[in-house]
């Protein structure tokens, strides 16, 4: 008797063993390797690194393997590991004009310095299942155009900005940006805090919010100023050296969204920015982020702000998949004490009503 949610150590241990067993699946099928995940499910790795706030392809691949392909679970695994890592210091800000771009498009101009580079994209694939992949056919190497890595790739936004048509990027106040993985969110949030939150935010959540702005819930008349994807060098100044050294190269997707702005009493009409940045190749994420970033600037730009995507507290408090997933799923935990309290009161209330009804009938 008296079991309900009694489980104890043995049940938990068995559950964990079962999970590992199911993860492995049929043992006659070769086990997937981390290299295979990294190379062939690379966009999954990119998403886990972005929302996991940790640029490490191998760890992200491990997390995906351990999570059986559940990316939200993989993001959680990577985050929980990341939080235990010691900090050596901060890198210098990366400069995306130094990106060696594999893909770069602008939808605001027919041609731009550096050119439109289509690169690898799903955009012009016909979404027809490729049954050749089922047959394990090897894919031929694709021809690639030579990239001139020696020249900076100017950003379309910078060109517009020189003309005064686009607002300059907001100047920082010089203070180091707050790290949202070390300090609690306080509101109203500074833009660096917002951008960190959005980069870590769940892609599906941001996509839905971004979509809502295009359907009139906080429209901001967006144009893709530019999307670029490629590798950017990362530099660090070791205290003992005193000068910066290049320590790594990371792949990034950057989206500069250009938005109409009617101007105000003091500011002539000009275009404004929404910004998106993600690890790896993640255009849907970067674009969604840029749209939501711009939507969240509504108040700053004295626009009407009454749509969900423009509501800073609503967006920032609900964007995180690890927080959301945990809290939604915690309803699986036993709640029978609280439910018992409710039962006691509801029974008493029902009895009172029934007594009243009966009294009235007599």
């Amino acid at each position, binding site marked *: *008797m*008296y079991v*309900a*949610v*009694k*489980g*104890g*150590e043995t*049940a*938990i241990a068995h559950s964990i063993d079962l999970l590992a067993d199911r993860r492995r699946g049929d043992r006659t099928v070769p086990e997937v390797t981390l290299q295979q995940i990294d190379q062939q499910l690379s966009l999954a790795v990119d998403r886990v690194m972005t929302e996991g706030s940790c640029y490490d392809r191998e760890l992200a691949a491990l997390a995906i393997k351990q999570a059986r392909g559940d990316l939200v679970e993989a993001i*959680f695994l990577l*985050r*929980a590991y*990341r*939080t*235990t890592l*010691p900090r050596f210091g901060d890198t210098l800000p990366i400069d995306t004009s130094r990106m060696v771009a594999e893909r770069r498009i602008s939808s605001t101009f027919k041609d731009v310095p550096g050119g439109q580079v289509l690169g690898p994209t799903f955009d012009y694939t016909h979404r027809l299942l490729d049954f050749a992949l089922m047959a394990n056919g090897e894919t031929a190497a694709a021809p690639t155009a030579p990239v001139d890595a020696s020249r900076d790739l100017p950003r379309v936004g910078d060109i517009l900005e020189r003309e005064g048509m686009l607002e300059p990027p907001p100047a920082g106040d010089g203070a180091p940006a707050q790290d949202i*993985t*070390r*300090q*609690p*969110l*306080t*509101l*109203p949030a500074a833009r660096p805090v917002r951008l960190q939150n959005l980069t870590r935010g769940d892609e599906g959540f941001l996509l839905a919010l971004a979509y809502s702005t295009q359907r009139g819930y906080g429209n901001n008349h967006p144009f893709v100023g530019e999307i670029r994807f490629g590798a950017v060098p990362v530099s660090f100044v070791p205290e003992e050296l005193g000068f910066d050294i290049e320590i790594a190269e990371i792949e990034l997707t950057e989206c500069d969204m250009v938005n109409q702005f009617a101007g105000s009493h003091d500011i002539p009409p000009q275009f404004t920015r929404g910004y998106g940045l993600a690890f790896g190749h993640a255009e849907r994420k970067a674009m969604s982020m840029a749209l939501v970033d711009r939507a969240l600037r509504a108040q700053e730009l004295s626009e009407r702000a009454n749509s969900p995507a423009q509501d800073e*507290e609503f967006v920032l*408090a609900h964007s995180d998949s*690890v*927080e959301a*997933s*945990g*809290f*939604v*799923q*915690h309803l699986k*935990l*036993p*709640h*029978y*004490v*609280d439910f*018992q*309290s*409710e*039962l*006691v*009161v509801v029974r008493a*209330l029902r009895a*009172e009503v029934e007594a009243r009804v009966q009294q009235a009938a007599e």
Partner: protein
Amino acid sequence: MPDGAYNYAYLDEQTKRMIRRAILKAVAVPGYQVPFGGREMPLPYGWGTGGIQVTAAIIGQDDTLKVIDQGADDTTNAVSIRRFFARVADVDTTTRTEEATIIQTRHRVPETPLQEGQILVFQVPIPEPLRMLEPRETETRTLHALSEYGVMQVSLYESIARHGRIAKTYNYPVLVNGRYMMSPSPIPKFDNPKLDRNPALQLYGAGREKRIYAVPPYTPVKSLDFDDHPFEIETWEQCCALCGSKASFLDEMIVDDEGQRLFVCSDTDYCEERRK
């Protein structure tokens, strides 16, 4: 420690210091929710990460830890958290309330009265008592600053108007030392009187919401009510089917397809001790 890949009690020392500072602030301003840099824990948000971080920041090898969920030591989540600390903090565990120096709990306060020197750590899902009446943090923070709690009084009054009584049953709001309105976490209101002037230190940790708050020993904790509708706790016609207690919070179980009910103590340690 048993698991060499991680620091003692899982958290790094800098994180512990940050949480410890937040705890001291929480004790200094009873009932006020101190924002802290909550970390991602290896357990999901909503499953006790706040309580776990508080416990990890205070626990040492001299401690004896008890973990309960729904009053019981053997519910799966309690087992899981106890196992976590046995592994990362190399600490003795117990199911006996009076032997424990730290008790981490979800949804209950033990029936056995606590002693001075004991620390009760609550796992808190939503630390803001006004959240369901006002979802915005920016608003509720102002209400606390002004000590303006009329919105809650109105809500309780509406309940009386509708039901003839205050129908709120768990997470029943309290006023700490006459100043801050506080969520006692989703304990049944049955447990609210135990919070009042308790000799033990009460620490509340909300991991996802990144808040820590506290009630120091012997601090007045008043459950909100009205003169003509005084606060009252749940009562049962039944007594515990195992130990016969008429004074404890009872769990209800459906024991057959006919819907037969059985009532037993929710606090398993209390019940077992009474049966000895």
